[in-house]
């Protein structure tokens, strides 16, 4: 145990360190941006609020005071920065402007599960289906199966999630009237764990889920097809063939080896998958993080925008780490410390 777990530990520690440094840099960027961009948007929104407060002093000045205090624009920049970081670490992301006096964190926490419920199953399903299709194409290289899979993947992989979502809404929601066109559940129902609600939620889930799965699948198929072709041409595959090993067995080895880079690919792809699914949420009026971000963006609710980004970037890094962890477990080179 001791000998085999140490390289793994070192690998994981290095990853954690890297991600922590990256996270600090990312939150620093989130902090710096509004303060360096010409015309300081924070100052602008504050002055707009203070102008409004002349006509309605009671309501607005409370918002204004809270904001002034939270952003501490009067203080030197390093005090502001330390304030920002230490508060963020304690989960205090400030107060929303649009939903005043609600805290940003209280607005974000309830929408996160909706995003996860949509993004995770869809991404994993697309990964599995896409990789399988790609491997089949490579195995039957230059047959009509390969050509069909490759050509359709090349096109499908370029369809933005949200546009496919629009097309699906139009066909299945508007034309056929078979599925609901928006939301995560019917209006008027309250989320609860009873069968009726779950069926209702499932009906709402089909279209956004399919639009992500279908358009994400193509990219994985293209990648795995190439990787399997490379592996099939490698020395060990050829050698096994000369040894008279069955095609099926060789293919199993090759497929497993080709999946390794795709696990790393999953980690690298999470960001754009998240971006795509956030926009898909907007198209579907799905009550997730993307929809909240959209509302924050349209009302220029900077505390809320900042808060959402601090959380989103953190979750991307955590997910990244989890994928790397799985990678370390399944790749014997890291497990045994042969790759450094």
């Amino acid at each position: 145990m001791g000998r085999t777990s140490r390289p793994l530990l070192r690998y994981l520690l290095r990853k954690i360190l890297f991600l922590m440094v990256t996270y600090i840099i990312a939150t620093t960027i989130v902090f710096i941006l509004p303060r360096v961009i010409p015309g300081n948007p924070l100052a602008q929104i504050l002055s707009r609020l203070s102008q409004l407060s002349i006509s309605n002093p009671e309501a607005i000045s409370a918002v204004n005071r809270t904001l002034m205090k939270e952003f501490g624009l009067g203080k030197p920049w390093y005090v502001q920065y330390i304030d920002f970081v230490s508060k963020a670490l304690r989960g205090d992301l400030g107060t929303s402007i649009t939903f005043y006096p609600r805290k940003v964190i209280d607005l974000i926490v309830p929408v996160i599960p909706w995003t996860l419920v949509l993004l995770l199953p869809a991404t994993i399903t697309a990964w599995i289906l896409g990789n399988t299709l790609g491997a089949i194409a490579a195995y039957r290289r230059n047959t009509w199966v390969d050509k069909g899979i490759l050509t359709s993947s090349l096109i499908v992989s370029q369809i933005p999630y949200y546009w496919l979502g629009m097309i699906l809404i139009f066909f299945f929601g508007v034309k056929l009237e078979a599925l609901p066109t928006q939301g995560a559940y019917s209006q008027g129902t309250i989320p609860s764990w009873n069968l009726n609600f779950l069926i209702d939620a499932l009906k709402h889930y089909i279209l956004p889920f399919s639009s992500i799965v279908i358009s994400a699948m193509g990219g994985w198929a293209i990648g795995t097809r190439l990787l399997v072709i490379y592996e099939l041409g490698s020395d060990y595959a050829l050698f096994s063939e000369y040894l008279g090993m069955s095609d099926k067995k060789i293919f199993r080895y090759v497929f497993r080896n080709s999946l390794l880079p795709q696990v790393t690919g999953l980690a690298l792809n999470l960001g754009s998958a998240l971006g795509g699914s956030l926009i898909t949420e907007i198209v579907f009026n799905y009550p997730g993080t993307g929809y909240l971000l959209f509302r924050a963006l349209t009302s220029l609710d900077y505390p809320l925008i900042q808060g959402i980004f601090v959380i989103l970037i953190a979750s991307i890094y955590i997910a990244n780490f989890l994928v790397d962890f799985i990678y370390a477990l399944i790749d014997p080179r890291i497990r045994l410390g042969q790759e450094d």
Partner: protein
Amino acid sequence: MLLKMFKPLFKNKKFIIGFSIFAFFVLLGLLGPALYKVDPTEMAGMFESPPSREHPLGTDTYGRDILAQLLHGVRTSLYIGFLAAIISLIIGTIVGTFAAVKRGVVDEVLMAFTNIILTTPSILIAILIASYLRVRSIEIVALILGLFQWPWFARAIRAQLMSVISREYVYLSIMAGYSDLKLIVEDLIPTIATYAFMSFVLFINGGIMGEASLSLIGLGPTQGISLGIMLQWAVLMEAVRRGLWWWFVPPGIAIVAITSSLLIISTAMDEVFNPRLREE
């Protein structure tokens, strides 16, 4: 030399198909607005009318002609794609080559920087930056997109150059006293030319996709019409749920056709230039 590089490509069926589709859209964007002289921002007919002889792709909520919007949109989206691609290519090449040539601390710092940007979702950073800019010109949007999509390219360039540098002819140049710059320009850049070209194609793709995403959430260019902005208008006006297909289908088809033609071009180039993929 460049001609020699491209000649075998035109024997590849996939390349010809991808190239033709892409060239068609480039022509559409370049000549379309001049040939179809309808102002995409002016009311040109009835509101939300389906395709007719007068308006081949119908009109939107404000009676604006969709075909005119599409032609201008293709032009803008391609322009943003090219601009973002050039920016990414330049940054990626500089970072990649310097890391490979200088090695040591320079390499480590540059690669740490590259990995940080690679791990940070570029579309999110683009959204964040764009949200703080009240006025966004087309060029600014291209810049925001171009600034964050180079890391994978820089890493690949570095890896490729590392292996080239250890070859004999480069060693001879170093012994002959070539400066770093001369070494890069004369010995190294030619070896990455095809890869750089393929990446450039994919960067255009990324720029067009990125613009569409940014615009859809209302953070695209604040003047002009792009394919993403057309989609944004369609979403804002609930075109999908009201069944106005002629409004949201054309810009999507244009995006998918342009980006997949670019992907087909780069796949075909890979098949032609990559010995491991060449068919016997």
